[in-house]
């Protein structure tokens, strides 16, 4: 069978492909994490203002970026699933949501831990923190909504609407430190202007971002496989899975 753009929109084909890719994603995640943390802890210097506590940046910023990116990924696939009536796309969106929510929670939690010694407070209702909390609520709302509706395709469409409408929050988070007077610091990195960080710190942070990306691929592929089997339960190929030992 020739490979087309839509070859892997078939649930059993995607199931097999995702299963083959998962170990490679884990390997990449572990290697990148090792490199990123080694650079972050043993090469990057101490921060002139904050001392050693700044090293939380190597997990806080990657988690925040992943939370934002994964939301757009989730909204994109939900929209594709709705527009093209593509079941698998909607399944992928459902699989992305918990990982995105996890990263949003980690970003908020590590941010609070970082804020206490540097700002003197665990929390403040500034624009960036508040909009990131809303991001977490949107993720949880999406998960609750699709689980609450019995008919899977209606649930997919309702979830897609929520995901798409909520996507406006992501640029709000991004621009919040420009548009409002926030306690959260402004952008240290920009696409046009380069960076105001020490280069070893920046490299470590970027490596950890790639590591979190690889992790996200691994977990989302794993969860998509679970969702596919849940949804395609009655199909012959799904019932044959245990025979083939395909439970990785």
């Amino acid at each position, binding site marked *: 069978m020739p490979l087309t753009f839509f070859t892997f929109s078939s649930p059993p084909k995607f199931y097999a492909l995702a299963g083959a890719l998962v170990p490679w994603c884990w390997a990449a995640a572990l290697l990148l994490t090792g490199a990123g943390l080694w650079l972050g802890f043993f090469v990057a210097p101490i921060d002139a203002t904050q001392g050693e506590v700044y090293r*939380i940046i190597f997990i806080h910023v990657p988690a925040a970026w992943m939370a934002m990116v994964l939301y757009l990924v989730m909204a994109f696939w939900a929209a594709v699933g709705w527009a093209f009536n593509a079941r698998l796309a909607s399944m992928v969106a459902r699989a992305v949501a918990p990982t995105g929510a996890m990263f949003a*929670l*980690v970003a908020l939690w590590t941010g609070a*831990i970082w804020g206490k010694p540097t700002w003197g407070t665990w929390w403040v209702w500034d624009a960036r923190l508040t909009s990131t909390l809303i991001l977490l609520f949107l993720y949880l709302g999406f998960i609750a909504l699709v689980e609450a509706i019995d008919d899977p395709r209606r649930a997919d469409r309702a979830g897609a609407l929520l995901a798409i409408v909520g996507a406006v929050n992501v640029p709000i988070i991004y621009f919040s430190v420009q548009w409002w007077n926030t306690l959260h610091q402004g952008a240290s990195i920009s696409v046009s202007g380069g960076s105001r960080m020490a280069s070893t710190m920046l490299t470590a942070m970027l490596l950890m971002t790639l590591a979190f990306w690889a992790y996200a691929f691994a977990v989302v592929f*794993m969860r998509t496989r679970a969702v596919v089997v849940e949804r395609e339960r009655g199909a012959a190929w799904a019932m044959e899975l245990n025979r083939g030992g395909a439970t990785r």
Partner: protein
Amino acid sequence: MSWSSVADFWAMGGYAAYVWGAYGVTLAFMLAEPLLARRRHWRAVAAADSDTDTDTDSDLKEDS
């Protein structure tokens, strides 16, 4: 960054609780999540598999 000693590394300039607390929370979530995903997959496969078991097998050989 060369640390003067292993103890210095763990101490993180006095911020150990914050730094290792943050990394610990993150690690906990990033270990739990794939385990939960794996379990969800197992359960789904088991459920799909059980769909193949028909209840028409009659086993009347109770006594022996």
